[in-house]
C-alpha cells in the first residue's frame, strides 16, 4: 500500500528529528559552556589554563576585588590574602588565597570562580588557578593557593571594577545535604 509506505517514511523522519532533538538537549551542555566562555555569560571565566601574551596598557587602572564565600556545608576557612588590588590591563598579576581545613579528617574541596559584572567575565583570563582542579586537604591542613591572571585590554570602558568571587565547596556532602 503506497499510503502505508508514505506514513512509514514520514514517521521515520519525525522519529529521527525527535531523537536528534533529545540529543540536542544534551549537546546544549557543551554548547552552553563554549558560549559562556566566549561571551562571559553567567560570570563564567575560562576553566583551564590559558596562554596569553602580555600587552600592558599602563594608561588604565582596573580594581580587582576578591570575594570569598565558604559554602556552609564545607568546614573550611578560605580567604584572599589581600581583599583587592589595582591592575593594568594586559599585564600579568599574582594573588594568593589561603584555605584551612577545619575538619579533623581528609577533605576534597573545589573552589568555583565567578566574575561580576557579567560583561567583565570574558575579559578576565586565568593563567594559573587552584580552581582548575579539586584540592585535597589533609586533616587540619592550611595551605596558600596561587592565582595568576590577566585582564584583557579590550575590557569595556564602563567597567572599572571587577569582582572575582570564589565559592568554596566541600565536594562530598553537597549531594547528601541537598537530599534533606
Amino acid at each position, binding site marked *: 500500500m503506497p499510503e502505508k509506505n508514505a506514513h512509514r517514511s514520514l514517521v521515520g523522519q519525525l522519529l529521527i528529528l525527535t531523537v536528534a532533538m533529545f540529543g540536542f538537549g544534551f549537546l546544549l551542555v557543551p554548547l552552553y559552556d563554549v558560549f559562556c566562555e566566549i561571551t562571559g555569560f*553567567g*560570570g563564567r571565566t575560562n576553566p583551564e589554563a590559558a596562554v596569553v601574551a602580555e600587552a600592558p596598557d599602563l594608561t588604565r587602572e582596573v580594581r580587582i*576585588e576578591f*570575594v570569598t*564565600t565558604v*559554602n*556552609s556545608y564545607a568546614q573550611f576557612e578560605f580567604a584572599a590574602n589581600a*581583599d583587592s588590588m589595582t591592575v593594568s590591563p594586559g599585564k600579568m598579576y599574582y594573588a594568593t588565597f589561603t584555605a584551612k581545613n577545619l575538619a579533623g579528617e581528609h577533605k576534597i574541596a573545589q573552589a*568555583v570562580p*565567578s*566574575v*561580576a*559584572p*557579567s*560583561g567583565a567575565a570574558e575579559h578576565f583570563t586565568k593563567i594559573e588557578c587552584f580552581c582548575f582542579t579539586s584540592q585535597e586537604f589533609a586533616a587540619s591542613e592550611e595551605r596558600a593557593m596561587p592565582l595568576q591572571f590577566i585582564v584583557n585590554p579590550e575590557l569595556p570602558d*564602563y*567597567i*572599572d*571594577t571587577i*569582582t572575582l*568571587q570564589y*565559592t568554596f*565547596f566541600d565536594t562530598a556532602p553537597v549531594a547528601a545535604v541537598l537530599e534533606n
Partner: protein
Amino acid sequence: MIRNLLLGFSVLALADTAEADWALNMPKGVTELSLETYNLHMMVFWWCVAIGVAVFTVMIISLFRHRKSKGAQAATFSHSTTAEVIWTTIPVVILVLMAVPTAETMVRMEDSRNPDMTIVVTAHQWKWHYKYQDSNIEYYSSLARSSVEARRKGTDIDPYSVENYLLDVDNPVVVPSGAKIRLLFTSNDVIHAWWVKDLSIKKDAIPGIVNEAWFKTEQVGTYRGQCAELCGKDHGYMPIVVEVVEPEAYQAWVNSHDAGH
C-alpha cells in the same frame, strides 16, 4: 468585559496622576534608574492603551454595526495587501520607538563604575547575610520576631495588628544617602532573588555565581522588599529592609557596630 477593562485602565490612569495610597502602580522609587524604569513602564503602558483603544474601537463598532439583527449584509472581501502592509509596518515603528529609550536605560544600569561601598549579599534558606566589604561588619537578617509569631498557622495574632507584617527584619541593611552602593549577590543553597522595588533592583542570588547591581539615592528612608525567587517552604518569609540614612547617622551606626563586636 469591556467595562472591566475600562475600569482597570481608568484606575491605573488615576493612580498615575493621584499617587493614591492604594498602591496600584509601579512605584517611581527613589533612584534615578527606578524613575527611568517607571517612565519606561508608563511609556509602554500608554502605547498599549493607545493600540488597545484603536483596535477595540474598530472591533466594538463592528460588533454593533455589522450584526445580522441590524440587517447587515456580509461583505465578501478576504484580503487587502495595503491593510496588511500598514498593520505590519506601524507596529514595527512603534517597537523601535520603545526600544531606543529602553536600551539607553539598560546601558546606564550596567554602569557600576566608582562605587563608594560594596555589600556582599549571601542568600540562605531562609534569611539574608550581609557583609560590608570595606569594614568588618557582617550579620544575618531574618524575619522580625513580631511577624514570626503572627505568621504561624492558627495563631490568634491578627496580621493587621503587626506593623509591616512579613515586611520587617531584625537587622536591616543600613547605607548612607548620596553614596553609590554596589551589591554583590550569591547564595549558599538554592536560588533566591533580592528585590527592593523602590530601588528597582531584583537580582538572582545563585550558588557558585556572583551577580552585581548598584543603586544611589539621596532620599533618606526605609525601603522594603522580599525574596522573589521560589526558594522552598519559607520563601514568603525572607523580607529585605534597606534603611537609607544621612552619612553622619551611617557613621554612627558603623561605630556602634564596631563597638558591639
